[in-house]
Every structure is written in structure tokens, then in C-alpha cells.
């Protein structure tokens, strides 16, 4: 992680360093490290208060990385494939906290697929990052469920199974914020992360994050080289915080779309080559299926829809988080017991 040597502080008086974590034990050059450093940067830029943030992960190289950012936030490094349920539990205990989970493609797409889909159905509010490298890094390079069909790797051999596209999966599961990005595109990762923190429910970021140890050969669609040459952003993104004014730049304003996010902040989408309307669910799905068929590496905000309430909203969780309720709210008085027992006499 190459931290810019800045001592500037943000609106809650913290410096970028205050969002750092333990030194990374991941491989040098691992995509996950670069994502971790964007998370640090975004938390800093958004002026998150560390104690307001919860971190989650499953098991894998990717899942180790929450130890390497936001060291002043509570976190839970759970079980392989089970980040979803642990996060849901912690976030109903305290739904007022902001949350970011980091999982891997194996963690989410293989062992954790069912849990992932059901998390999205419930729409628990959190940022769900998949550091997608097509392999199981930590167990030394086996193919994961997102590995590209026909890919041949030194250790894993030839992959003859079709990949699972986690963005398609997210859309099918009615997720309202679905984005794909590339660890090599730091700016896009940052803007998407910021927008994701503004989302009402679960925001899924499927970030291609090359594994330099096991899946970085130039012909692999999950490599840096491939990503750099083939990334095709659907639009140029700019996150505009609630307070800021919108500045329309030099380009033809007709080419600019503003997506209003749930908390009132906005995401500026500047058309790059094609027009993609991220609010059209069916179009988003078709675009992803096409990309899969044509082997295109499209990135950006694929789908956005904040109409579904979050779990906390639907369950009408109280203002005060469940974990902070006073004892008096937790235990009804003796009369209530007496009254209830009457029915059983």
C-alpha cells in the first residue's frame, strides 16, 4: 500500500493514516492491497468516524485484508463463505453502523453463494466488496467459480466450467446497487465505493483484483495486463457528496447523467462509448450477458435502484440499535408476565 504522505485532515479531524490497519501480509502487487488502500482513502475522504464503521470478511487472502484497513473500527473475520450471515447479524444488532465487507470470489461465489443471494434479498445495508481474482489465492491457486472458461493455469490446469457472473447473480437477487470494477482502476474503485456507502441496502462491488501469485498471466482475463488493455468503462464516474454543488464539466451536458443516491448525494455518469442506463434492470442484465458472450470486460455502475427498503427499514428496527436498548426495554415488567400467564391457567 503506497500511502500518499499527506497529513491533511478531513472534516472529522482525522488524517488518512487514522484509517490504516496492520501491515499487509498479502503478496506484493496483489490487487487486494490496492483495493484496501482505496478503502482507506475513501473512508478518509468521506470523513467516516471509525467507530461508526463495521468490517466483515470470510476466509481467504481477500478476507484477510480488513485487518489492513480501518484498524480503529470493529471487525469480524468470520468463516469461509459465511460473511453474509455474520454481517446480517451484527447489522441488525446495530443497524446504525456503516458497514463494509470484503470477500473473495471463492468465498462468495463457491461456498458462500447461497448466503450471498439471500443477503441481497434481505437488502441489509452494507457495502459488499468481492475481490475477484478467479482463483482461491489462500489455498494456492485452484479455480474459483468465477474463473474464466477455457483458462489454463500452471497449478490449476484447464478450467472447463462456465464462470458464475456475480453481478448477474446480484441483479437476479434484486440487489439495488451492482457495480463491477478493476483493482487497477483506482479512481473508479474509489468513486464506486463512495457511492456504495450512500446506498440504502446492500451494494455489491465485484472488483477484478489480480492474484499475482496464481492468476496474473497476460492472457488471463483476471490479470493486470488484460484488465489494463481491455477494461471498458461504461461511463466515467464522479461521486458528489450531499453538500457539494454539481459542476458540469466541459463535455456535452447531454452526455451526462446524474444518479441521485439514497442519502441525497449523487453520482455523475459521463458517457464514454455507449449509453448504459443503470436504472434499467433488464437492460443491465442483458448488457452483462452480452458482455459475457462477447468476452468484454465492462466496468462501472451496472444497476442502481434504491426503491427497496433495507432490512432495517422493513423490519422497523428502532432508532436506538437493538444492542444499545436499556434493560427496561429488554425485560417486560412483572405484571406483563402475570398477564401472559393468566392465559395458561
Amino acid at each position, binding site marked *: 500500500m503506497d500511502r500518499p504522505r499527506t497529513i491533511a485532515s478531513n472534516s472529522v479531524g482525522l488524517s488518512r493514516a487514522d484509517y490504516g490497519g496492520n501491515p499487509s501480509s498479502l503478496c506484493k502487487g496483489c490487487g487486494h492491497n490496492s483495493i484496501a488502500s482505496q478503502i482507506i482513502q475513501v473512508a478518509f475522504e468521506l470523513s467516516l468516524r471509525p467507530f461508526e464503521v463495521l468490517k466483515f470478511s470470510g476466509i481467504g487472502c481477500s478476507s484477510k485484508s480488513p485487518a489492513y484497513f480501518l484498524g480503529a473500527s470493529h471487525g469480524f473475520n*468470520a468463516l469461509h463463505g459465511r460473511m453474509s450471515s455474520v454481517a446480517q447479524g451484527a447489522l441488525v444488532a446495530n443497524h446504525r453502523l456503516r458497514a463494509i465487507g470484503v470477500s473473495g470470489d471463492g468465498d462468495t461465489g463457491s461456498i458462500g453463494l447461497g448466503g450471498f443471494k439471500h443477503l441481497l434479498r434481505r437488502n441489509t445495508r452494507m457495502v459488499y466488496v468481492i475481490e475477484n481474482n478467479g482463483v482461491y489465492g489462500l489455498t494456492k491457486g485452484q479455480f474459483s467459480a468465477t474463473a474464466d472458461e477455457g483458462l489454463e493455469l500452471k497449478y490449476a490446469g484447464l478450467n472447463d466450467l462456465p464462470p458464475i457472473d456475480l453481478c448477474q447473480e446480484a441483479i437476479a437477487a434484486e440487489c439495488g446497487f451492482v457495480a463491477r470494477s478493476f483493482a487497477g482502476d483506482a479512481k473508479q474503485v474509489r468513486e464506486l465505493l463512495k457511492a456504495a456507502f450512500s446506498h440504502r441496502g446492500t451494494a455489491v462491488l465485484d472488483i477484478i483484483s489480480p492474484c499475482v501469485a496464481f492468476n496474473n498471466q497476460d492472457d488471463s482475463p483476471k490479470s493486470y495486463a488484460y484488465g489494463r488493455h481491455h477494461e471498458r468503462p461504461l461511463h466515467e464516474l464522479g461521486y458528489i457528496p450531499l453538500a457539494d454543488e454539481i459542476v458540469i464539466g466541459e463535455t456535452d451536458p447531454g452526455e451526462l447523467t446524474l444518479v441521485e443516491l439514497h442519502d441525497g448525494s449523487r453520482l455523475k455518469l459521463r458517457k464514454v462509448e455507449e449509453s448504459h442506463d443503470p436504472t434499467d434492470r433488464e437492460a443491465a442484465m442483458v448488457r452483462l450477458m452480452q458482455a459475457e458472450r462477447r468476452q468484454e470486460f465492462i466496468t462501472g455502475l451496472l444497476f442502481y435502484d434504491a426503491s427497496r427498503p433495507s432490512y432495517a427499514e422493513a423490519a422497523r428496527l428502532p432508532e436506538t440499535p437493538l444492542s444499545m436498548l436499556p434493560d427496561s426495554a429488554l425485560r*417486560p415488567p412483572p405484571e406483563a408476565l402475570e398477564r401472559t400467564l393468566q392465559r395458561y*391457567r
Partner: protein
Amino acid sequence: MTTTPSHLERDVTNDFSLVVATANGTGSQTANLTLLRAFFHMGIPVHGKNIFPSNIQGLPTWYHIRVSKHGYVARRTSEVLVAFNQRTVEADLRELPSGGMAVVDMGLACSVERDDIHVYRVPVKTLMGASDHKGKLRDYLANMIYVGVLAYLLDIPLASVEAALGAQFGSKRKLVDTNLALVQNAHAWAQTELVKTDPFRVAPMDATRDLLLMSGNEAGALGSVFGGVTVAPWYPITPSTSLIDALRDFLPELRRSEDGVPTYTVIQAEDELAAIGMVVGAGFGGARAMTATSGPGLSLMAEFAGLGYFAEIPGVVWDVQRVGPSTGLPTRTGQGDLGFVYGLGHGDTKHVVLLPSSIEECFEFGWRSFDLADQLQTLVFVLSDLDLGMNNWMGRAFSYPDEPLQRGKVLSADEVLDQGFARYLDVDGDGITYRTLPGTEVPGAAYFARGTGHDAYAVYSERSEDWVENTDRLARKFETARGYVPRAVDERVDGASVGVIAFGSTRYAIEEARDALAIEGRAFSSLRLRALPCGEEVRRFIEAHERVVVIEMNRDGQLASILRAEYPDLAPRVASVAYLDGMPFTADFVMRRLEPFLAPVALEVA
């Protein structure tokens, strides 16, 4: 078992067992509960057991009601039969003990002829013909016919039937009336048409005034509500479902803030892996979280159970046991999960397990489990069973918790500032360390929970020393737990050389057997375990007896194994009586299996 056990020969007023045989899904449950509650209303000790199939509609089902002036509630042979199911009528009649009585739907084809029993044939169809109900509702209401006939034959006051119907339908007066009309009608018919020849009858008593009639699952749910449960993720599975159903009934009523906002959330998870995962997440987050499951779900929770133990996360898991291994008999009762749950999870995992035996304990352990989980920072398993959980039991009115909520060692923001914070540092020497909740608004309060090796500061560590220090501390904490969990109930008999150890719902059969054997001069002491790990009282009990018999409802004698491993020096005294066929124990069974261990009745005295 077609003969009445000799030790139970007695006056048959308020002292018999009755069984209603119907088909599943025909709504006979309402009629059965009406009978049960009518007896209860009359002040007679009573208990009902539903023996039902794993099926929604059509397969045979039997509802047993034990009426006992002595207050015994264990299962035993029924002398009174209501035969309303074509598929079982012949077998049911054949199994009736000599001298028994049967109310049989006249519409059923039946070739069994016995002259040693009292048979009353009831023209259900004709009697229903009078009513103008149709279809399913008609089938359902037809069950009221046997209520009416029995009311006449057994001498149940119609006022008690009415009270029982009232208790069931609450404010829905119309339903009460509809049902009551049928009962009265059948009663009237019986009065005119039947000549009572059998000896079975009931008479009012005053033995239920301060008692409740409730199922263990309801009691457990109610206890959880008073324990402050806030998060309840679950996945349906018989026989634990009704615990969550009860929770969902009680919570809206008992646990809303003044402005009507719920102070809880119940989540139907996609499976048990997710249910326990949410419990662990919520426990970490500071909520009081619980789930309920049964064997198959418990198996799926193994990995998270290990995480809960190791990362020291509070949470409560009810395992309402059914018959395993595997899917087994989903609607039959057993105690086969004890050994498995005690060490659920790979590696050296160990859990606190509570063992309720009554609705009072279901209620008490319902709330206390949360306190224990918070105090010990670990998962607490509550092991109930289908018999206790799904059937209606009498119990004393529950005592309101006698102490405030125990939240254990949670540091506030100020305390973190004052004292500093190391998540896994054993400051007090009891193995229990301090924790902070997410959201605690001071720097230094955060930590990273994990299932991997860590040091006292929750930082990842592969150092052998850190591992040993941490797991030794966990072992120390488990020793501390021995002093926290409910004590075993020690019922010594002076001079008895034999002690019986048991847990859970088998207590009723054992107590009944104990009384009977005591009369015969073959008394034994008994110890009812209420939790694992066991406290010192268990060792003392074993030490005080030459022979200790562990009785349990599983095949392999799981508690016996646990005790032998726990007290190797005393293991030779520990004998095992273990049996599992899906049906609750009878006193008779217990007596037969204990006999070889007890001194013969001292004939030389005679």
C-alpha cells in the same frame, strides 16, 4: 404393553390414561386440548402427549391424556380409547388392556370383538347429520362428538368443557358456541343411548389452582422474551418450530416500545448455517441473539459453534431434540444430541449446555441462558426435546427473574479510556476477558474478532505461546462456567446405595418409578443434572453411592460416557441404562431397568 402394571393398580377415579386415535390434519387437536383443559379446569392433574406422524394430513395420530390424582404425568398404557381412525381402529382395540373402555365411531369397519373391554359405539355420522357444517369444517367439528360422549361417560361437567373451549378460542365466542353445541348434542345422545359399564370417571379436585398448562416450547419462548432476546434468526424444523412460533406470538405483545416500535427482530434465515451465523454476528454486535433448531440443523451449525466458542461470542441455541441419527424420526422424542452438542465443532471445542426438564425450567433457562452467554461470552445450548417442547405440561406459575439482566464484562467508552482494553487478556483470572461493542465511541475500543489464532489483543498470531495461553484460558473459563450454570438437583435418600442420574424430560417417569419402588422398600437417590459442564455436586453424588445408574433416552448412553470421562476415578460405579424408541419413558420401563441395580426387597424382614 397390554396389561396395567401391577404397581399401578388403583381406584380408577381421576387415575387413568386415555388415548384418542384420529388421522393427522383432521383437526382433532382442538378436541383433545378441550378434554385436557376440561380436566385441568376440574382441578385434576393432567398431561397430554401428542404422538403424531411426520405428515401433514391423513396418517394416524394418537393423543394421550394422563389423568392422575397423584400428579403423575409420565406416559403409560391407556385404558380409555377413542377410536376414530379407520386405519388403526382394529389395532387400537386389540391393544386396549383388559378392563379398558373404548368409544368407537360406529361408521368404522371393525372386526375386532372383545368381551373383556367396555365398548361404546357412537353414530358420528348421524350425530353430525344434525349439524349443517360442510367439508373440512365438518370433519373437524366431528371430533367434538367424542368430547361430548366422554363428557357423559367420564362425568366431565359441561361447564368445564365450556371453560376449556373458552380458553382455546379466547374472544371468538362464536367458535365456542359452535363447538359447544356439538358437545352438548353428543352428551345428550350419550345420556339417552349409552349405559355406562366401565369404572373410569373423573371428579373435581383442587390440585391445579396455582398451576399453568403450557408446552415447553412456549415456556422457553416466554423465558427468552423476559431474557431480553432481540435477534432471533431461525430456520424451520420440527420440533423446534413451535418455539419460534411462540416467540413470534409473545414478542409483538410484550416487547414493543411505548410508540409501538418492536425492540426485536425475528429473521427466517435461508438455512441453519445462516441462522447460527446471524446469531454469532448479532452476539458480536452486542444483541441478545438466539436460534432454535433440532438435530439436522444442529449438525449444520458445527462450524459456527466452534467459531462462537473460540471467538467468544455470546448467543443462545435451543436444540429441541427429536430422534436421530440423520433425519431419523422427526416427530418422535429423544435425548440423542447430548454427546454431540457438548463438543460441537472440530478441535477442542466445549460448550455450556442447559438441560431443562419442566416448563418452569424452560422458562427460567430461557432467560438465564442469555445472562450466562453474556457472562461467559460463549454460546449456550439449551437441550430440550420434542416431548417437553411440544406437549402440554403442568407447572407452577413462573417466577419473575430474581436478578437484573447480567451483561457480563462489557466495557463502556469511559471504561476503555480509563482502563485500556485488551480483548483477550485475562485480567480477573477467571478466564473471562473484557469486550467492547461495535459503536463504542472511543479510539482503542475496536478489535477484530476472528476464528484464527490471536494474541491477547486479538491480533493474528501463529505463535505457539499465544495459542497455548489462549486455549488454556478458554479451558479455565470453562472451569469458571461450572460455578455459573444451574446446579444439579440432588435428591438423596438416606442410606441408599444406588443413585440415579438423569436429565430433561425423563424425570417424570423416573419420579413415578422412584415413588413406586420406595413403597416396595427399594429406594434410591437421584440427581437431576441441569447443565454441563457439571459442578462439584455431581462428583459428590457419585462418591456418595456405591452404584450410580445414568438413565437417558438415547442408544449409546451419552451422559454416562461424559461422566465416565469426567470422573475416571469414579467411572467403575457408573452404569448406563440407555434406550431410545422415540416414545417417552414410562415409569414401568424405568422400574424394570432399575430393578437389577436395586437391592431385592428385604424378604427376611417379612
